[in-house]
């Protein structure tokens, strides 16, 4: 019952973040590196890509607030703003909130375990916790 990693994870990331294939590729390369990288560094890893293409793409990722950059001589050195997992979590949460918020109860085929809990239910949840604890002790005693 152990979790297994999803296959072809860059696909969903691309679609969810609205990233192009090249943007995703460069972002993945930056995540793989320990430190920041300039357009030149990345071009050495992807010789098929033109230097200017890499520079423009990195700039686009910076404007999308996915990368941070600092001066490194005459060029910029880029590093990811967050880890891959943090970005995925942020994207999933943002989209879920947006989708769940936008779709009213009557407009989506969805069965959720618990949809909403009222403010006034806090005390009730404490009371129910007590009941669960009591039942757990009762069961444990019966098993002894």
């Amino acid at each position, binding site marked *: 019952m152990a979790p297994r990693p999803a296959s072809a994870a860059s696909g*969903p990331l691309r679609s969810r973040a609205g990233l192009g294939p090249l943007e995703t590729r460069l972002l993945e390369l930056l995540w793989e590196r320990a430190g920041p990288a300039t357009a030149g560094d990345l071009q050495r890893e992807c010789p098929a890509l033109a230097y200017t293409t890499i520079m423009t793409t990195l700039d686009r990722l910076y404007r999308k607030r996915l990368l941070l950059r600092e001066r490194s001589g005459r060029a910029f050195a880029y590093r990811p703003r967050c880890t891959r997992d943090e970005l995925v979590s942020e994207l999933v949460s943002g989209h879920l909130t947006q989708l769940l918020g936008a779709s009213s109860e009557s407009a989506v085929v*969805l*069965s959720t*375990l618990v949809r909403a809990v009222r403010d006034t*239910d806090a005390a009730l949840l404490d009371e*129910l*916790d007590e009941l669960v604890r009591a039942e757990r002790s009762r069961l444990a005693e019966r098993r002894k």
Partner: protein
Amino acid sequence: MSAAALLGLVLLATFALLSLVLSAITALWWRTAGHNRAVRSVDLLTLRLLPAAGALLLVLAVVLPAFMRYEPQGEREAAGPLLWALALFATAGLAHGIWRGARACSAARALLARCRAGTAYEASAGRWVQLLAAREPLVAVIGAWRPRIVASESVRAACSAEEFRAVLAHELAHCATRDNLKLLLLLSAPDALAWTPLATSVTAHWRAAAEREADQRAAGSDPGRRLALAAGLLKVARLVQDHGGPRPELGMPVASDDVAGRVRGLLAPPRQPRHARVPLALALGTLLLPLLALPCYPLVHELIERLVGLGR
């Protein structure tokens, strides 16, 4: 107007008329006896689908044969304004139902597309759950035709292994009974009730009943499993509350989510499920209807003729 066009109009108009009558009966029944917490989900589903399904059955089993048997061949007849109005009403109702169903499916598809990444987790033999690295404490079954179970990591982290298994067993119970497909039928029923708050109310009661029944099916009679699900349910409720309190746009008109009733139901000894009476009676009626309607064909045709000519 040709006989075929007139037949089309008559079928649509009688569907609208019968669906209106059955909607009124359903509404009356709901107001007088429907608010019973012990009603099973299958009874509520039958009740909600009665106007559209009943009207369709009557049209196909009574109106159509009566028209075909007694309408003079080759005769051209003009339709009155009432027939046109009813036929338009039926068309609008059908279109509205299809639109609601398509919108619900498309929203579910969009949600599933967002949930596709993450990790797969085996809930039981051959049944995989999508685990999402999301902040929302979400545990849900999404989609009508091929429902998928999704859960957020926050829920798995909050629950013990046994509680999480129990929570997933609850969702698997929804899949086994095709609850989302039933929900789609409820959301897209093409009748007059769909334009009233009563439809929302019946659907909300159906959801609550379906949740209670999924709890009972998932936990069975094993006290340990019942306790684990009750504890898991409470933990998810806490997460939902901590995440942002009540979300009215997702809330149900019946007691937010009857977490207390469900937890108490799980802590109590299991009860034998009540037999569903409404669907059984309706199934018998459906089988007998074409036979019972045979002697009424001349009268039905006479009524159709009056409806066609009304206001002309």
